């Protein structure tokens, strides 16, 4: 058996597939015992055909398997440099760029917010110190008896102003902390309207209905349509039993003439609550809220 005969008649493959006659089989065995090249080829063919049959059995040669395995190649990419498609590199680069940009914007906003909070904190401590000094001065003047009644009254008014300022800052801080702890999307915001403003409160009733979603730990009330013009406001919550359950001093109206109050849900069970808004100790609006 010669090399040429082996090539022409596909002897190697037929040997591996047991398609040779016993005489041909032995002749080829004697050949590959003396021929390194044919021995190498017959070994490789035996492995190849065995692998193809096994792959056919296990489904590796089907199209579905190819799609699955393309996502988890078991060999390093050096075998398949063409696998990385032309569009993949710019697409990945673009994704990375956008992600970096978003990260940068987020970092900037956090930095600015930190700076703002830092400024607020220093302002609050300044006001607190000023208040302490003012109180000490009043005590000193009262003890010495050297100050006139007008001077003392002016100092007391100044004290009140500082206290209100501190209370306002505390309210703002509480609102900010609550906003940080709970995302805005989870905090219901409800507009309420005072008694006598039935046209806007809807349904021809003075009662503002509060339907809070389950799981809402806090909610924001927006008070509108009250007599504006005061520097600070105070809101008083009265329970259905007529008991004052909460007061919020130091509230400020925004540029739209509305007041926003963050309220903790757990303080309010179901029932009808009355909310009185005061400006300089004058009741200027009353809201009726039905919590469901």
């Amino acid at each position, binding site marked *: 058996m010669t090399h040429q005969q082996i090539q022409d008649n596909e002897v190697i493959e037929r040997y591996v597939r047991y398609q040779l006659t016993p005489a041909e089989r032995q002749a080829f*065995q*004697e050949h590959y015992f003396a021929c390194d090249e044919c021995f190498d080829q017959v070994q*490789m063919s035996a492995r190849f055909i*065995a692998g193809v*049959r096994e792959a056919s059995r296990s489904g590796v*040669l089907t199209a579905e398997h*190819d799609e699955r395995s*393309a996502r988890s190649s*078991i060999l390093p990419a050096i*075998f398949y440099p063409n696998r990385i498609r032309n569009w993949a590199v710019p697409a990945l680069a673009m994704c990375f760029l956008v992600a970096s940009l978003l990260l940068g914007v987020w970092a900037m906003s956090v930095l600015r917010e930190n700076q703002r909070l830092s400024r607020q904190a220093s302002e609050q401590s300044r006001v607190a110190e000023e208040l302490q000094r003012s109180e000490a001065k009043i005590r000193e003047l009262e003890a010495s008896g050297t100050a006139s009644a007008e001077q003392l009254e002016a100092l007391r008014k100044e004290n009140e102003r500082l206290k209100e300022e501190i209370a306002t800052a505390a309210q703002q801080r509480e609102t900010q902390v609550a906003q940080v702890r709970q995302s805005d999307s989870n905090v219901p915001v409800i507009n309420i309207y005072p008694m006598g403003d039935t046209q806007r409160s809807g349904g021809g009733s003075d009662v503002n209905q509060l339907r809070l979603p389950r799981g809402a730990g806090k909610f924001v009330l927006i008070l509108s349509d009250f007599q504006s013009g005061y520097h600070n406001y105070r809101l008083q919550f009265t329970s259905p039993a007529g008991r004052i359950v909460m007061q919020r001093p130091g509230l400020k109206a925004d540029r739209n003439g509305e007041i926003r109050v963050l309220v903790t849900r757990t303080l309010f069970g179901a029932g009808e609550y009355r909310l009185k808004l005061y400006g300089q100790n004058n009741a200027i609006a009353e809201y009726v809220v039905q919590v469901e």
Partner: protein
Amino acid sequence: MPRPTTLADRELVSSVELGDKLAEAALYEKYSDRLYFLALSELHSPEEAEDVRAETFTRVLLALRDGKLRKPDSLSSFIVGIALNVIRESRRQRSGTEPLEDHESKLVGEASPERAFLDQEVSRSIEEVAKQLKPREREFLKMYYYDELPKREIARVLGVKEERLRLIKSRALQKFREIYRKLQTQTDTE
């Protein structure tokens, strides 16, 4: 075609006849893999192939020491002849000693004798080859080697010429060879 190993075979035979132990080792080195492959092809059992290799070498060395090989140029044919005799004896012994149930189960097992040539590198190489082939080329390999359909039928089903099938086959084998060699190199270096 010239046989490059003829001269070496003649020298090996004469050295073994003179009791040269190094020549015996060289003889084993030269034909060991071939003998194992031949036995594995016939018996499909690594353990039995190992036994056949050992028994064949024992007989070959005894015969050479006794000067029973008259034509040293035909050493390879001589070894193949002895190996096939050992294989026949092994088959007879197997069928004579095995319980019927075991024998039947082995016959069922012999429906896929190629399993003897499977190892991790072969499976991984085939998987990688499959990824590089077109769906139609993969389908051809399955129809040809697994379903064992005739080429003419496959050509008709796939809508390609028969000559094209031969090209697909040789290309796939070539890819397999390259990947298998790389994997073997990796395994050897690990």
